[in-house]
């Protein structure tokens, strides 16, 4: 560890073409998205995987497999128009209940969202099993606690969720902009609950940040 940095700096980073090959090999070797940080850690000192990825992504445009961005990580996935060739590989996923699908959508579009908020939106209580199932699928996870009385936990979607639905980012959710401009993503407390309004507004800012800063 101690001598490595000194030695490494004596050598130049590999040429970009080589770096591209390395990123290609690493992404091909795994089923999970690989973060740029991990790429840096695995490639020779001084490498710039972010730039190599730009080249690699271009190289695979229109091919049978593509380089895709998943959150802040990268993966290679088959082109979705070729899914019909892959009946053999198709994973039969457990059919999600309507409650689970709606809960997932609410978490994705309204994140970070508390259980109480999910219930408020759906108008029914959310069963433990629904949340558990989504956590088990690794599509949602616990986010930061709310700074409101009781400090409830919030839920947010995961990288696995983005990967599964082919999203680069939670901002790319279909129809997100329209829903926001229609005011449907605002947390609007029922009239008469005036006291909570301030806090709720604070939280809403949080939510916007989450989408826009990522």
């Amino acid at each position, binding site marked *: 560890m*101690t001598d490595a940095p000194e030695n490494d700096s004596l050598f130049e980073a590999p040429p970009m073409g080589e770096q591209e090959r390395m990123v290609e090999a690493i992404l*091909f*070797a*795994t*089923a*999970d998205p690989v973060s740029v940080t991990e790429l840096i850690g*695995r490639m020779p000192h001084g490498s710039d995987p972010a730039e190599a990825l730009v080249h690699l992504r271009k190289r695979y445009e229109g091919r049978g497999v593509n380089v895709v961005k998943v959150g802040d990580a990268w*993966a*290679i*996935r*088959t*082109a*979705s128009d070729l*899914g019909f060739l*892959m009946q053999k*590989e*198709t*994973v039969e*996923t457990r059919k999600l209940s*309507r*409650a689970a*699908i*709606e809960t*997932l*959508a*609410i978490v*994705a*579009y309204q994140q970070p969202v508390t259980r109480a908020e999910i219930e*408020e*939106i*759906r*108008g*029914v209580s959310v069963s433990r099993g629904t949340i558990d199932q989504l956590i088990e699928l690794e599509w949602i996870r616990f986010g930061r606690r709310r700074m409101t009385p009781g400090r409830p936990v919030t839920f947010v979607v995961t990288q696995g969720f983005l*990967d*599964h*639905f*082919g*999203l680069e980012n939670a901002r790319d*959710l*279909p*129809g997100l902009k329209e*829903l926001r401009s*229609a005011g*449907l993503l605002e947390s*609007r407390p*029922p*009239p*008469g609950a005036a006291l909570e309004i301030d806090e709720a507004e604070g939280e809403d800012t949080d939510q916007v940040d989450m989408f826009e800063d990522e």
Partner: protein
Amino acid sequence: MPTEFQEDATSVSERLAAEALIVDVGAFEGPLDLLLTLSRTQKVDLREISILALAEQYLAFVEQAKQLRLELAADYLVMAAWLAFLKSRLLLPPDPTEEGPSGEELAAHLAFQLERLEAMRGAAAKLMARDQLGRDFFARGITEDVQRVRRVTYTATLLDLMQGYARIRTKDDFRPFVMDREAVMTMEQALDRMRHLIGFAGEWTDISSYLPEGWEMDPARRRSSTAATFAASLELAKEGKIDIRQSETFAPIQIRKRSPQDD
């Protein structure tokens, strides 16, 4: 009301539709879901929906369910009570002395809730319609595990080496620093020392004269040896070997050997 209903439902198809709605109550995901379904019969944009009409529809539905002796979950009944309240608020002229939100505000919020639920349903449908991993696109089939190799290297410098050698070769005069408690005297050491000396102390003697040679000058050593000697004196007194006396507070403490005739 019930008779009215029977008279109203003249056509068989209408009645069947109404019953189907009731029988399907289990399919609704709560009162909000039911309200959303009912609102569709108004065939207008949710933003222009008549909450009053919707409230009436819902109440009629609950009434029908009661007639058919269907068990309705408590939250459906809570919603019915709330809608009945909302309906009265919407119909009666606003009472300026009354506290709380107006009927319009409550109705607007309900409309917002319905619109939001509908929007979330739509979002869910769009989400599920996307290409999905493992169904429409696929991850790598043959994966290679990343082997984690932990390599431990040991280092030592020439200085370590030389000091190590010197340590061994000069063992006789080398003392590890950790044992360097030269300014500490234990009670056991003092006791040991006093047992030997006390035999010669027939007269009253200041205990400070029992401090070991060379320990009186250095403050740290003096403090430690004084404490140890004092503690040892108490121990010896307890054993009946010596007498202790002190004329007043802070005066010198004196000890002497206890002679057999004192008993």
